[in-house]
């Protein structure tokens, strides 16, 4: 690798490593265990994991059909629809939270009917947290899967259909395995985004321990009263995310988008 490029790359690595090193340097290691096992920490952690996994599941269930629609079906205004669906990726999360308010809040466009007819309120509930997280996380999955579907050779699926397979069978046994790396990468990205979501959550769902106080909210609030605890919680989140990302390894990310040879 040419030396100038190597230098820039090393600066980039240092840029990412420095904040982590800073956290580790300031961490109160003698009190760490107390903070990690505190009730508030475990509650926030459990809530974060449960809500982010739900948000990821919803992202997959709704995101894959959406990706299919955007990749395979040609309809007027497709570009605008794609931009609309990916909007929350570039929107500041708090703006997303405010927008969700006006749509699904107690006086919201749809929310008022949910409240009046079905007695369903989303703000200040765990369901509201999942909604907020799904709103910001789904586009990551959609964009990854759509790219993979576009690059997938349609002749593989055509061959399957001409051999008599149903559409569902073709999707299950030909398409899905072929886009599996992209789907996994997209799901992991969506999960990570949902786990770290703060702005939309605190604006739309609120902040209450056990119901809506996820780890990012807990870190933010403990920063005001007990910075040591905030550092420990932050390191915990980093450790979890780091483990998942390392566990996935190159083989999943590297294979995104490449056509896969499907055994005949």
């Amino acid at each position: 690798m040419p030396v100038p490029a190597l230098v820039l790359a090393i600066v980039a690595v240092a840029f990412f490593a420095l904040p982590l090193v800073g956290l580790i340097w300031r961490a109160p290691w003698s009190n760490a265990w107390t903070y990690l096992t505190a009730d508030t920490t475990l509650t926030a952690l459990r809530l974060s994991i449960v809500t982010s996994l739900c948000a990821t599941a919803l992202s997959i269930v709704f995101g894959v059909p959406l990706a299919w629609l955007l990749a395979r079906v040609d309809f007027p205004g497709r570009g605008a629809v794609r931009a609309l669906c990916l909007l929350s990726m570039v929107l500041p999360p708090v703006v997303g939270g405010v927008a969700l308010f006006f749509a699904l809040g107690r006086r919201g466009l749809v929310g008022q009917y949910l409240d009046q007819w079905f007695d369903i309120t989303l703000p200040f509930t765990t369901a509201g947290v999942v909604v907020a997280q799904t709103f910001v996380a789904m586009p990551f999955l959609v964009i990854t899967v759509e790219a993979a579907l576009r690059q997938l050779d349609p002749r593989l699926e055509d061959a399957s259909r001409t051999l008599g397979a149903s559409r569902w069978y073709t999707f299950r046994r030909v398409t899905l395995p072929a886009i599996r790396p992209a789907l996994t990468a997209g799901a992991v990205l969506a999960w990570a985004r949902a786990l770290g979501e703060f702005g939309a959550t605190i604006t739309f769902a609120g902040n209450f321990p056990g119901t809506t106080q996820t780890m990012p909210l807990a870190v933010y609030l403990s920063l005001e009263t007990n910075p040591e605890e905030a550092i420990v919680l932050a390191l915990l989140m980093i450790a979890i995310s780091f483990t998942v990302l390392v566990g996935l390894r190159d083989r999943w990310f590297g294979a995104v988008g490449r056509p896969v040879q499907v055994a005949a």
Partner: protein
Amino acid sequence: MRNVRTKFIAAAMVVALLAASCGSDDAPPADDATLTVFAAASLTAAFTELGDAFTAENPDAEVTFNFAGSSDLVAQITEGAPVDVFASADLANMAELTDAGLDGDDPVVFATNLAEIIVEPGNPTGITVVADLADGDLVVVQCAPEVPCGSYAEQIFANAGVEITPASFEENVKAVVTKVVLGEADAGIVYRTDVIAAGADAAGVTIGDDLNVVAEYPIVSIADAPNPVGARVFIEFVLSPAGRQILASYGFGSP
């Protein structure tokens, strides 16, 4: 080889220039005219007008404000934010600052405030006393306990002898106001000045004197401030009759 090295040096210079210009945009200019004031969220409207009046009297001065929950501001100052003046919504958060030795002078209480229940216009849920908030059907929000308005709320609930489970702990008093104004929450504990500031978008329910707490707002200059002279002049202005009049017009009481 010579070509690559020249290009690299040129690129490095461009990056350095960019970094320097990005950096200098954020750093305060070296002259004495800029003043940075951190103030509690409930002081937003009043201090903005105070800032305008201050600049009118001192045309060379330029005041920038950072409004947030007092505990949030203390955390920022403790971590080394360059600030000249800090105005807190309670004595407890100011004490955290003085304990850390960051006060340039002794804090002075410049205003008082009263807590009030904020409800939607017309008070549709018919709340008259603090005890009404204990109704399980009501959606009540308050500030997080470390924020002054949150600790005042807890004191009031303790005085009234009621157990209230809020739907959410907000990070500053304006967030509580927003939740009620937008119709998401039925009621919240805020300051009287916030109810006044909300105007026609909200209504207030007074809390009885026997239950209410008087919020005391101290102001202090910060040790090693970038502009200590400006800090002193600003604090004097806040304490002056002109300053008190502006605060009173927003509903603040005198100390």
